């Protein structure tokens, strides 16, 4: 397997939002889902997950409530709020635009300059 890619600065938030947009999850579940949808190609620091979650909750993009997990244990579930949904959209747009610009730059040939 290829070596996992390190996360770019500030992208963890986006990934978390995307992960919970697909349905409410607890913290561990969010981790698994990100790994799943990235097909395990991203290296996620587990320790930085929860501070990010708390930050996102503090800012109002996600909301939390306690519920029961699959094996009937108490766990804290996070879901996307309406504002969070909009935030995810904006961030995704920004990311795509940025990716366009960067790849454009990287593809430029000497003649185009």
């Amino acid at each position: 397997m290829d070596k996992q890619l390190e996360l770019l600065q500030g992208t963890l938030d986006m990934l978390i939002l995307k992960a919970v947009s697909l349905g409410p999850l607890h913290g561990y579940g969010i981790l698994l889902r990100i790994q799943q949808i990235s097909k395990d190609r991203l290296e996620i620091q587990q320790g930085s997950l929860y501070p990010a979650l708390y930050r996102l909750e503090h800012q109002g993009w996600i909301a939390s409530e306690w519920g029961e997990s699959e094996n009937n244990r108490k766990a804290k579930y996070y879901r996307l709020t309406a504002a969070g949904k909009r935030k995810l959209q904006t961030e995704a747009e920004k990311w795509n635009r940025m990716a366009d610009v960067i790849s454009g730059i990287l593809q430029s040939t000497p003649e185009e300059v």
Partner: protein
Amino acid sequence: MEPHGGRHLGDSAKHAGGSVRFLSRVRSWMRAVTRRSRMEREMDAELRFHIEAFAEDLVRRGVLREEALRRARIEFGGVERAKEECREARGVNFLESLIQDARFGLRMLRKNPGFTSVAVLTLALGIAVNTAVFTAFDALVLRPRPVKDPDSLVAVFRTTPGDARGRFSYPDYIYFRDRSKSFSDLSLFAFGMALTSSDLPPTGPEARSRLAGAVGFQLPQLLQGSAQPVVAVFVSGNYFQMLGAVPLRGRLLVPADDQLGSSPVVLMSGNFWQRQFHSDPKVVGSVLHLNGEPFTVVGVTPVDYMGTLPNVPSLWAPVAAKVHVGGLAAENLENRLLIAGMPAGRLKPGVSLSDAQAELDVLAAQLRIAHPEDEKNTGVLLLPDRNDVAMLGPEEWALVGAAMSAVGLLLLIACANVASLLLARAAVRHKEIAVRLAIGASRGRLLRQLLTESILIALFAGAAGLPLAAWLLHLLIVEIASALPSAWGTIALQVSPDVRIFSYALLVSCAAGIAFGLAPALQASKPDVNSALKAEGTLFGRRLSRLRLRGLLIAGQMAACLVLLISSTLLLRGSQRALEIDAGFESRHVVCLEIINPANLRYPQARMLQVSRDLIRGIAGVPGVRSVAQASRDPVGGIRWVPVAPVGAAASTSITQETQTTGAGYSYVTPNYFETLSIPILRGRVFTPSEAEGQAPVVVISEATARRFWPEENPIGKHLKIGLEKGTMFYPGEKDPFIPSSEVIGVARDVRSMDLRRIDESYVYLPLSQSRQWTRILLARTEADPRQLLPAFGHEVQRVDASLPVVGAPLYTMISMDPFFVVSRVGGLLASIVGALGLLLACMGVYGMVSYTVAQRTHEIGIRMALGARGTQVLKLIAHEGLRPILAGMLIGIVASAGVSRLLAAMLFGLNLLDAFSFFGVSLLLGGVALVATLLPARRATKVDPMVALRYE
């Protein structure tokens, strides 16, 4: 439609989103603050769940449970750090961590009770002394008057060109009182007066405070059997009403009392009532004779009640009563030119100061038109009635500055002390700190936590210091108050707790906490994690910088201490010199008797002369009295100047008419004055009794006067013009001497009667005619100790006239009344107390530092001794290092003291500014004590067993 609507929705949603964001942030913050422990539990549960879930996944893949858990934890990383970051993300960090720091700090302090108590006590001392000085300052200057609603009180001044703070005459006061609409009340405070009363219960010899006696103050005592002086202040009838005062007994003055025709009444102050009348309830309604007139006591004001005055008077009376005691002639109540007193008013609600000023300006203008001559160029000025900071003059500020500097130095010493204690502790804790740094604490956080500990210590010290300050102040006030004669009124300092004092103490504590905590905290949190963890605690390089800081602290303490001690010694020695100065006249066997305020008796001249004669005869008849002389001023006070000029031949100095400096001091004396005071006559003779009786134009001059006018010649036979034809304006109300040509018949030796620090520049003695003049001052020369004769003198006074108030004291005690002496003595005492405290603290600091160094270097010492060093060599090494900062500090202290002594020059009475005893002796003392404080623990180093030391960690 869709995109447009979407964009529109998006815009409003953005705004809504913004407020939602903010709201959710606030909600989250509030939730976190109020339900912190719940959040903590939840966070803990959440993270644990995560790790267990991960572990379960691993178990499912076949890993053993324990191994799975371990791997899960490692994979997760630092749980604490994650928690910390989570907390931070929630945005409650500051308050939370502050509380956490405080709790941790408290725990640490509790674990080290020895350290904590020493630090707290040391600092408490410094804070207490500081707070005490500030409290006194506050009580005297900053505190608002203890009256109802002090902010609406204004003081009214009369302005003339050249004087912006003038007083009012009585008719002018009435004018403004009746016409002004801005005030709900305008009252007048008229000048106080010393009255005499023979109705006061006899008091024993005025109780002398131990402190006053110890310090060398001796006040003239009222002679038994003589009438007692008492000070009364005069206020208008509406004064108490205006201030909203409440009587302790009986009633207060009302406007009806303040009419010319009403019967004279008087109030007593609670202090006077307790002290003189022992709280006798029958005093209300009794009659007190003041200056011979009967006054009815109608009430008692509360204890320590001062109204708008700076101290508590003994009696309060209405202004109209002044006429009864002879302080004011009835017709003068109409005299616009005669100064009566100071009005104070209460502004009506809603009226501002500027409104009132405007109204009064208009009234003043009308007054000027109505009385053009009397009121020429006068105006009014209104100012808030407070003990304003602005009312302090430069001398007062200098005194305040000096006091605050001295106690500030003490506080600095205390802080330096505690700082070095903290440094020592930091060294002990460096492992703990290193570990904390290693697991991820930020340096700032660590710094904050260490500082919190320091501030906690400081706050405890402040809390302990406040009652200590109150106690100190109470002690001082009680002592000072009992040292003053009761006739002067009472100084009542309001030293009850007060917001300002609390906040000052708090401020000082926090400042101190930061001052002594910052450097050690910075030092301690400097991470050298590696070596600390490897337990190489005695790495020389790092230790050196810590040692340098401690050395600096020690040097600072030594310097501050030395400055305090040397200054105080200089002041004390200077004041001692004052007492030993040979004034040029005999003072140990002379009693000075003074009739107080004889004008109060209102005797006609003939009667006064008779009383005077009888008194002299009586005193002279007391066994043990050699002679009794009269003088118009006592030999150390009441200076009088008169311009003098030689008559005829070229004067060696030109005399102007106005300046005092070309005048001479003078007094009228009887011929036996010189003999009574043992002032030798160097040339010529004294006046004969007949010359004195006839007031012949002869004069005895002092040596300095002779030198001044006739430097090379014999002054006998020369003539002096004394005084001016039209008189001088120096002493309004007194008749200046004027002798156009007075023959010099004798030259007396120089004395120091006007300023203890130097010989009188010029002095002339004029003959006193006992048949035409009487004097307040009598001087009696005694054979033995004069104090034993005082009761006999009192007996004589009573026999001659019981309503005469006479004080008597040996002459030498009056020298202790010289203000410079008082300041020098008291200042020296206080400074030496502070200095002694500083010495104690500084030595504790030195002892602590050296002990600590020894403990720290035990390992190194062990190595040295194992390699062959002898005990004494080790001792020298330790002592050398300890002494370096001490010597450096002392050097700085000596230089600083030299500077300070220059500032104190005025109070040193001629003591050499670099007085050897003070500088050398005190330095030796300090050095010696510091040396002992160094050597004692250093000796421990020599007892170190190398084998034990080598194993010491």
